[in-house]
């Protein structure tokens, strides 16, 4: 039985939940670079196209639109750093915790025994930086847990480790 009364001492509302002794592991710092490159790849062409379209009206309009797009990209970049920093995962004795999100904060607890299969994927950019994304699937469609920006060696090692733990603790549906 969960006792809501005894929770007052745990009131760490700002830092998000999780026991104090949980040590959060973070994705590689290269993840921020990957996200920045992604943002730049989107922002650059968008600014150019926006500028060209705006130029049909007047040169000033074209420059204004391009500048606005670049400004939006820069603002997003500031946000990216916080978002990347929000990722974290912790391996506990019986389950894996994954946290993410700045605006909407999420924290998932996935028991090792519930993992049906584990994916390691890497897009072209991630591959170039030597990163990979780990995804954990359970029988529930709603539980999506992933850890982006792991170094590919670490991702493979974590996958094998989770798979072994999952096999050891597997439970029926």
């Amino acid at each position: 039985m969960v006792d809501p009364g005894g929770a007052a001492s745990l009131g760490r509302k700002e830092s998000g939940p999780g026991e104090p002794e949980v040590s959060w592991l973070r994705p590689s710092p290269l993840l921020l670079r990957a996200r920045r490159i992604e943002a730049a790849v989107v922002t650059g062409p968008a600014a150019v196209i926006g500028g060209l379209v705006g130029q049909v009206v007047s040169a000033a309009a074209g420059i204004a639109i391009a500048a606005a797009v670049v400004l939006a990209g820069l603002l997003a970049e500031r946000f990216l750093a916080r978002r990347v920093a929000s990722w974290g995962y912790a391996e506990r004795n019986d389950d894996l915790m994954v946290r993410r999100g700045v605006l909407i904060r999420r924290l998932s607890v996935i028991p090792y025994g519930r993992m049906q299969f584990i994916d390691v994927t890497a897009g072209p950019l991630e591959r170039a930086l030597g990163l990979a994304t780990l995804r954990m699937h359970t029988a529930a469609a709603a539980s999506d847990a992933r850890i982006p920006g792991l170094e590919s060696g670490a991702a493979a090692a974590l996958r094998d480790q989770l798979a072994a733990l999952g096999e050891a603790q597997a439970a029926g549906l």
Partner: protein
Amino acid sequence: MTGPGPAGPSADGLLPDRPLPDRPLPDRPLPDPQLPAAQSLARDASWHRLHPLSPLVRAGRQMMSLLVVLTGIAVLNQHQDGNLVADLVVIVAALVGGFVSWLVTRWQVAGGVLRIDTGLLRRDSRRFPLSQIQAVDVVQTGLARLLGLAELQVRIAGGDSARGGRLACLRLADAEQLRRQLLALAAVPAGGLAPPAPVLTYQPGLSDQAEAAPDPAGRLAARTLFRVRTTRLAVAILLTRPGATALVVAVATWLTAQFSGSARVIAPFLPVAFGVVAALWRRFNGEYGTTVVAAQDGIRLRSGLVQTTAETIRPGRIQAVRLVEPLVWRAFGWCRLEVDVAGSRQRREDRAEGQRLRALIPVGSRSDAGLLLAELLASPPLPSQPAPARARWKAPLSYHFLSWNSDDRYVVAARGRVCRETTWVPLEKVQSIRWVQGPVQRRLGLATVHLDVAGRRVSARIEDRDAAEAHQILAALPDLARAARSRAG
């Protein structure tokens, strides 16, 4: 075996599992042990074919529409002979295709595995370990009922409906027999799907036993738990959203016709009206005569007017139970009780209803629901811990419903704006636990905890708790769930 009177003396309250005389469900014959075909469906390892008429049933619906379209075209283009030939070619091709598909489809039960092979060019061989079966359904479409055929559907865990097995079609008696045998074979390990190894070894003595034992004893032990009242079902469906839509459409049509004074203006409303009526009919057809019976091999569920469905949910395979109380129904004290079983249903016609769970009680009184709930879950807790008062700012419409509770076996959470939804989740079925906090919730110091279970997007949502309490829930539930899992096996 299907003679008058029950198969044996029935004690008080122990009804034999057969339709009562006032029920229009087809009289399901008790499987005759002397019936040669039914005798050894699951016992020998030989390959079986589906019923020769099954292509007709499978293609029934498409064939009908095809025929209608082709006849229409043929009538319109009577002077052109070429079209008639083309139509015939299409029909013959469809028939030949169905026949070939029947010819190359075969199935077998051997070594604890149901195997279905099909496909001419692209062979498709599927194996369903019996120990992983979540539920077995016997579905009869209208055409299949006329021909005495039935479709057997095997549900395996996984949200993807393509992963289940269909045997369409078998003779009804064979399908019933096979269902019983599959469930008996599947019940060999008491627990879940964890240890597949011992199950896969085929034990010949076991199916003998399974065949002999359940019939007299199992049927007598079956108890009818609930039977829906037809008039109440009809009224209740009219009081739901599609019903209200139908009413609005009808009133709008009438008003338009009234003001314009000509009947022609209602033409635009006809497609809408048709869609609404079809939706209402589908629901009525699907839920008509829902009967819930507790039997030895699980909860049996029968329903349907034209197309009948008989499902068997194995004990311990229920992922979640949900009690739904829409606004208007609450005035009558009515509610709907749904269960979620891992593995979605196979019926193509059900696509629109995929989001709705299977209703054990399409509409019933609260005491019906309480009775059935007590049968499904052992002393389930009631949602008694309301959300903190400041949750009103974040969820003004649903605040009065938000509450939750848990014991060491179940978690229950209530939510909903107009329609109150109470979800019970057995802790041993919890797949993952998610804590979510949106910006408004953060300002108010609230958080939501989701408990995900297998199957469709079903989760018990403990909404808008005090952040500290949510921490506590998140810290405590994984351990409680683990304890429940290890208890369950």
